[in-house]
């Protein structure tokens, strides 16, 4: 399936992905208005420090045997049978945090005001996800695992 990958060697931890993600998931999709929204738009991708000078941008890995889907007790978290994407139906979410409990990447975020969880949706309204487009070093990549491997091979 197509999903977002991060090349740690290229990531500089600038957080451009975080900001782009939050704006894309705001009501207005504009930064000057997004920062005034209540609740504040939530980023679903995080730039994280690994070691001195090493960073990674991480979010939902859309796992094949997704533990969050298995754990979801309300049927809100599910696999898209066609694309393999891990999707979340906010209307069904009851905020039990079972997905948070089982995500091996800590990639889910609690939206406390409405008591629902939010996650990477691969930006359904765009051709290229906002984070990938915003990444200044091309560390982020959207494609299949094979395509990502090929890209790595070429760049190394």
């Amino acid at each position, binding site marked *: 399936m197509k999903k977002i*990958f*991060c*090349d*740690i*060697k290229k990531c500089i931890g600038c957080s451009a992905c975080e900001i782009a993600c939050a704006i894309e998931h705001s009501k207005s999709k504009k930064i000057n208005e997004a920062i005034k929204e209540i609740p504040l738009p939530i980023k679903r991708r*995080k730039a*994280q*420090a*690994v*070691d001195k000078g*090493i*960073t*990674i941008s*991480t979010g939902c*890995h859309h*796992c*094949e*045997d997704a*533990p969050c889907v*298995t*754990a979801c*007790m*309300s*049927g809100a978290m599910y696999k898209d049978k066609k694309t393999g994407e891990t999707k979340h139906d906010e209307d*069904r979410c*009851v*905020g*039990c*945090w*079972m997905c*948070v*409990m*089982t*995500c*091996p*990447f*800590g*990639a*889910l*975020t*609690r939206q*406390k005001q409405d008591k629902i969880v939010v996650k990477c949706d691969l930006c359904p309204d765009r051709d290229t996800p906002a984070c990938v487009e915003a990444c200044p070093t091309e560390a982020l990549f959207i494609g299949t*695992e094979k395509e*990502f*491997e090929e890209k*790595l091979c070429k760049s190394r």
Partner: protein
Amino acid sequence: MQIAIIGCSAAGISAIEAIRSKDKKSRITVISDEKRPLYSRCLISYLLAGTIDEKTIWYRPDGFFKQNKVDAVLGAKATKIDTEKKEIFFERVRLGGRVEKLKFDKLLIATGASPKLEKIPGVDKKGVFPLRTIGHTQEIQSMLGRVKKAAVLGGGLIGLRAAYALKNRGKEVSVFVRSPQILSQIIDEGSASMMQKHIEKKGINIVTGRSAKEISGKDSVSGIILDDGSKYDCELVIIGKGVSANIDLAKAAGIKTNWGIVVDEFLRTSDKNIFAAGDVAESFDVALEENSINAIWPVACEQGRLAALNMLGNEERYDGTLAMNSLEFFGLPVISIGITKPKKDIYEEIVRTDAEKNIYKKIVLRNNVIVGAIALNSVDTIGIFGALIKNKVDITPIKDIILEDYFDYGKIVNLIKGAKYGFKEKEFKETIMTL
């Protein structure tokens, strides 16, 4: 092939979906003594609380059986399994208990668990309920109009959820807990006392170290008598004293049972054609390193799925169960995984508390491998601990930062790279590939 499934909740439903993802032809017959089983058991307290509507509780659509080509025998209780002839006998409750039988090639027992009832005088009075089925919720709801005060016996997950629900419905609620702390099966004393204070502040009365010795009243409940002789008047009593596995059917058939039905790493019972999954199954626990029952939803779903695949002739190995629970009361969340109250001194515990932010975090280690964790009010990255537990990673290099607020996936990247046996989940490969 004829596949039979007894029980149609988390484990049974998950099994049906797994079978149909691989096999469109085999006949599937599911026998359930609940007439409308396609609801999420975990949500019945939410329904009682009124925080979800009826619609949300049906977590699979009405057309589920038809879509998956399943013969659903609903409102029927399996009464006997003949392992030699490979037959199940079942009684149709609605048809006056008419007995029928079904032949099977492979059978999944997913009969779940039943609430333990207190053996005290008066438990049979009107107004005393366990909370296990949607039927219980509906019965409780129908009498709520007459209830001003309620007592909950038991301070575990279900007891507290019930108390929360009743409080949300405007009832005056007291919870009586035999142990010195609430949630004693799930979290340790330190985190439990923080949760207890929080719940009490929101108006639920909690009495620890006390149990009921009698339920009083004529036909209906009028109160309870506690073990110190004191009385508490109420019109409703909910009993949340844990569950026991529904093993009678299997036991009578000569299938190996202990606390639950004993299964191997393929979810197979002592009979090679019969599998078991969910609250009824006793399997290897990866943290305890011995057999155990973790009666929780994610375990039931995963076991149901793997048992189903193995019934189809695959050899899908089950890594083992792991206890985990997630709870939130009045905005304060707590999640626990694995061993949280170690009894032997081979375990090491690291605790970090932050009184100002009302945070409590703990990990339990055995030889520098995490075997358990608690996170109260700082829960977002606890799933990473779960992965470290399952993959038995030596966490020595990150021991001093693992409980900090800034801990996240980035901090285990180097561990993944160095892990002796690698990480089982294939998605971790994506990270290693780029290092």
